[in-house]
């Protein structure tokens, strides 16, 4: 079949773990955007959900750090975090080894990746699933782009990875959804948590919606040193958004929600591409 749904969303642990500390008016509008994304995702009737997260040392460490990795199992588990802290109970999450294996084989035609038959989910995947598939009714194919342990893959490699996943979607008979998760600007898990560069976020999302490859890969604007300065270490996670942009194949996007919620540490974001 092909790609039937593409979007991005935030995954910060505070979204579920510190819900009670946020301004309820803004928080609830953000949650509603998440719920609408869930309805749209289900309406697309995907056979599998490829969820591209920037994991946080749940599975991969600097002893053997892949730039790109894809899960290949029938079941996963998560969260690794203390369930009370994250506000999400630990559980098994359904995957689909058969679809994963064929998807991975297609991606390997043009991109070198790692694959993993074991994968523990952290908030990068569990928080989005909590809203998007609360019944865990769509098999998940987890994907990781290293955004934590430098050196990180250059943005143009993340783009190429996204294109490779799109070709894999086109080659498979199943209906595939792709969702990238992460922050835009943020300084997570540091004393600076809550610092947000709203203007930077909105400019990046403008380019993401336009699916402007040259602008998104602008080496002067979005090199790691500049991103670190403008958008913090959390800004490295734009790689997941860029990967989805590439997979969307030139489609244009819509931002459904993008507002700072400082106690959640990011501009909370929900956005989708129009694949029609």
């Amino acid at each position, binding site marked *: 079949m092909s790609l039937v749904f593409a979007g991005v969303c935030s995954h910060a642990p505070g979204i579920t773990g510190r819900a009670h500390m946020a301004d309820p008016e803004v928080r609830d509008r953000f949650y509603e955007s998440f719920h609408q994304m869930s309805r749209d995702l289900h309406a697309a009737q995907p056979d599998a959900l490829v969820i591209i997260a920037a994991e946080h040392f749940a*599975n991969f460490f600097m002893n053997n750090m892949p730039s790109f990795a894809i899960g290949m199992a029938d079941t996963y588990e998560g969260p*690794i*975090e203390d369930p009370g802290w994250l506000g999400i109970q630990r559980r098994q999450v359904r995957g689909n080894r058969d679809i994963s294996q064929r998807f991975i084989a297609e991606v390997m035609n043009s991109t070198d990746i790692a694959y993993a038959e074991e994968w523990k989910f952290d908030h990068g995947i569990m928080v989005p699933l909590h809203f998007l598939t609360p019944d865990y009714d769509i098999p998940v194919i987890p994907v990781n782009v290293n955004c934590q342990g430098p050196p990180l893959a250059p943005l143009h490699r993340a783009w190429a990875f996204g294109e490779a996943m799109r070709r894999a979607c086109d080659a498979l008979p199943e209906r595939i959804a792709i969702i990238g998760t992460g922050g835009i600007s943020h300084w997570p898990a*540091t*004393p600076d948590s*809550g610092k947000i560069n709203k203007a930077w976020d909105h400019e990046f999302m403008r380019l993401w919606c336009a699916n402007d490859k040259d602008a998104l890969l602008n080496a002067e604007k979005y090199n790691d040193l500049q991103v670190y300065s403008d958008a913090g270490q959390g800004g490295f996670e734009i790689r997941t958004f860029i990967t989805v942009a590439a997979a969307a194949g030139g489609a244009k996007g819509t931002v459904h929600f993008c507002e700072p919620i400082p106690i959640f540490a990011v501009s909370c974001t929900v956005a989708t591409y129009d694949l029609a």
Partner: protein
Amino acid sequence: MTLYAVQKFLYELNRTPSLQTAYSNNRHAVLEPYDLTEEEQEALVAPDIGKLFHIGVNGQILMHFAAFHHIEWQDYLQRMRDGIATYGPVREGVYAMTTGIDEVVVAHNEAGGGSS
């Protein structure tokens, strides 16, 4: 040894329930296989969140470790600030601090006010 060994231990602890149990039973014993300095061992046993942040532990690894110890969020942030005030700036890595020691970044409760 280095920051690498500290983070390797925390990475394994964060994702391994059996190691968490062992750590809870005997913190010193589980650290033996790791090539750590005395300062690093003490910080991991205490746990001294401020010292670990100061020596450069990635915030994502440290955040999960703090959650394991049931350290409340604002307390976690304050412990890192106190670590910088006590021990000095982050030694290495990308999880440095960019705001002032006493700067309020986000209130305790966005709706109700407070300080960080």
